[in-house]
């Protein structure tokens, strides 16, 4: 049987990080059949994280971030072609050019796209941008190089904050608006979000929290925005950074459990159908998936993290060509990084799955610290600011469900840090930015739902 699984036809939809790494892993693990990768962008797979950092700074071209291959997956690449539907009975992927691709096994890796500004006429103004693709980054980088008088960033999640950081580094005036109480609060909770707000202001960002943008103004060309507090921001560039939307529309009639929260799959990356029955020939990986994790009480996690796309693609590929008893679970602990305002922020675990936090090393004043997150007496996450080398230690605490607050593990732990504080994770529907980790189940004592478009 395992011999058969290494042959046949595999189609991957989504030609980005997860799609490429899965295609490589299929070949590494001995798949000899036909492999087709479909992607609607015209470009070969490229890396997105540098787009909001190096590329916007003007240090690298938007089209220079092509992902290196670990090995040539010997695939047929159908680039610039959109998958428009899935026939699960006839086992075919329908394509935008009218043709269709038969498959024995399918991997869905269609990721997310930037959530657009909700008013189309305003979104169409010249000078209004979102940032997800290399084309977006090329246009925005060009506009930043032209030296706008002021940039307005809507939403202070990771992407919005990184863009604001780049603007300041380029000497541009920038206003950031955030509906929630502080930047990054949806991902990191209250205490670190206050540090993030202080960092932004110290670097000269005009940060406005607790407000929404009510309309974008301009006559063909963007000139400014009205805020809910009655003020007005004059700017000539606007970046809408209100989180991401999962690319699931093409699966509407597929019978799969695909909705705006993503495509539900099991820990082995197999998609569920809409009745909650697991399929055995349709797999999911990367930003478009949501999957159960035992460390987080089997709630379905949606992660918009680079490392998750890589790890999950690897597991999906393995399971696509392995018989039942040899299949593996996707259990890696979620982890991501962000760099902004000269700080390196790294996270392991799920900070939003918490009720308390404690500063375990360093301090807020020193702008170097490890914040540990706990839920009902066990360690569930840790975030470092300029202390990345400590992260592995806390990852082990999370994996072993170590008691919270954690035992002293490092020499510079301060006495003041021993008092745990509330983790202060807000309801994401009250933020302008989408959290990049969403628990799509529930916590018994808290309502956690996906952020909706905000006005």
């Amino acid at each position, binding site marked *: 049987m395992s011999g058969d699984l290494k042959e046949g036809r595999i189609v991957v939809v989504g030609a980005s990080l997860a799609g*490429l790494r899965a295609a490589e892993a299929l070949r590494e693990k001995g798949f000899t059949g036909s492999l087709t990768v479909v992607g609607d962008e015209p470009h*070969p*797979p*490229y*890396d997105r*994280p*540098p787009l909001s*950092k*190096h590329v916007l*700074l003007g*240090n*690298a*071209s938007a089209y*220079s*971030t*092509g*992902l*290196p*291959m*670990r090995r*040539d997956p*010997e*695939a*047929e*690449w*159908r*680039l610039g072609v959109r998958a428009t539907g899935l026939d699960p009975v006839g086992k075919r992927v329908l394509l935008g050019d009218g043709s269709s691709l038969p498959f024995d096994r399918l991997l869905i890796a269609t990721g997310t796209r930037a959530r657009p500004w909700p008013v189309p006429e305003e979104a169409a103004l010249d000078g209004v941008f979102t940032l997800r693709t290399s084309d977006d980054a090329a246009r925005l980088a060009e506009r930043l190089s032209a030296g706008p008088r002021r940039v307005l960033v809507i939403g202070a999640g990771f992407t919005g904050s990184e863009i604001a950081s780049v603007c300041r580094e380029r000497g541009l005036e920038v206003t950031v608006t955030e509906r929630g109480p502080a930047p990054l609060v949806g991902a990191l909770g209250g205490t670190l979000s206050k540090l993030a707000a202080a960092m932004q202001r110290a670097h000269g960002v005009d940060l406005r929290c607790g407000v929404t943008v009510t309309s974008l103004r301009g006559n063909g060309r963007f000139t400014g925005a009205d805020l809910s507090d009655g003020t007005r921001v004059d700017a000539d560039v606007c970046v809408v950074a209100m989180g991401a939307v999962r690319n699931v529309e093409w699966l509407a009639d597929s019978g799969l459990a695909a909705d705006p929260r993503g495509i539900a799959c099991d820990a082995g990356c197999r998609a569920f159908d809409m009745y909650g029955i697991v399929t055995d020939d349709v797999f999911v990986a990367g930003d478009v998936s949501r999957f159960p994790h035992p460390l987080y009480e089997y709630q379905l996690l949606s992660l918009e*993290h*680079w*490392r998750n796309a*890589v790890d999950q693609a690897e597991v999906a590929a393995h399971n696509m060509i392995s018989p039942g008893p040899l299949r593996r679970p996707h259990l890696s602990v979620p*982890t*991501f*990084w962000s*760099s902004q*305002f*000269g*700080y*390196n922020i*790294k996270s392991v675990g799920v900070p939003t799955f918490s009720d308390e936090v404690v500063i375990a090393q360093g301090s807020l004043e020193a702008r*170097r610290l490890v914040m540990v997150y706990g839920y009902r007496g066990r360690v569930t996450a840790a975030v470092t600011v*300029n202390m*990345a*080398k400590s*992260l592995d230690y806390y990852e082990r605490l999370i994996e072993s469900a170590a008691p919270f607050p954690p035992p002293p593990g490092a020499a510079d732990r301060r006495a003041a840090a021993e008092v745990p504080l509330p983790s202060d994770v807000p309801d994401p529907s009250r933020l302008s930015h989408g959290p990049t980790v969403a628990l799509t189940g529930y916590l018994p004592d808290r309502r956690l739902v996906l952020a909706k478009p905000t006005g």
Partner: protein
Amino acid sequence: MRVVVDLTRCQGYAQCVFLAPDVFQLHGEEALLYDPAVPEDQYERVRQAAAACPVQAILVGEEVSAGVR
């Protein structure tokens, strides 16, 4: 040749920065920035950096191009 660094794994040891300073730079205390498109005269240095990285976070290779239609 392209380079990508797994920045979840990178711990800012900066060996790469010493070995190929034209490609890898530290931004602030420990945030690594790098040029993903490696210029030809840097190939050898970048290969050395990839080999020297203590957490094996650096991947170098060619980008997808062949067979694209």
